[in-house]
């Protein structure tokens, strides 16, 4: 079945260093979403990418969708302690664009002050 693989599983960085998490699928995706989950919290929507090669920025966060729409990345520049949490990519199940999502395993980010 459709799967979304995410690496790395964990990342420890010093405050101020950059961070990147990668999401890969063996099948073409109609879209990709990114969520952040703080420890003890619930997933919070960050962004959705739909177009091939799309790049979107939110302050220090840069999101990319691959040309083949099979991979995506989230890059954080100059991490801060407030960036701590688990970042999930998620893709719509099937060919539609709905909230029925397949989530990656997540990348847990720890930031040392």
């Amino acid at each position, binding site marked *: 079945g459709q799967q979304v693989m995410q690496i790395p599983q964990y990342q420890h960085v010093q405050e101020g260093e950059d961070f990147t998490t990668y999401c890969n699928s063996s099948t073409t995706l109609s879209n990709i979403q990114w969520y952040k989950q703080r420890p003890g919290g*619930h997933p919070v929507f960050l962004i959705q990418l739909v177009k091939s090669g799309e790049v979107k920025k939110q302050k220090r966060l840069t999101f990319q969708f691959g040309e083949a729409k099979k991979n995506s990345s989230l890059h954080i520049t100059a991490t801060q302690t407030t960036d701590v949490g688990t970042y999930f990519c998620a893709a719509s199940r099937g060919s539609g664009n709905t*909230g029925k999502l397949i989530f990656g395993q997540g990348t847990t980010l720890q930031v040392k002050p």
Partner: protein
Amino acid sequence: GAGVSQTPSNKVTEKGKYVELRCDPISGHTALYWYRQSLGQGPEFLIYFQGTGAADDSGLPNDRFFAVRPEGSVSTLKIQRTERGDSAVYLCASSLEGQGFTEAFFGQGTRLTVV
């Protein structure tokens, strides 16, 4: 309400018992989703409602799991004959509509522990 509300926040039950988990979505959101999240994993899709009907229940693991949304707003996830493997955080999410999806809003979840 301001966000998706789930009750109870925690539920401890004995193996073999029946439990109900409630989700109150954001007012006006027609699409409602249930997910299950085990420790260290991403959320796993269970069921999707568009209005009152279950548009997709392919994620329900077996026939012990059932969900309803009789008036197209509040939803209840029901688990019969609970097993220890059912222990997880059950997340509910809602969105403005099912198709043309832009954003899912998650509740805080119900942590279910089966002892």
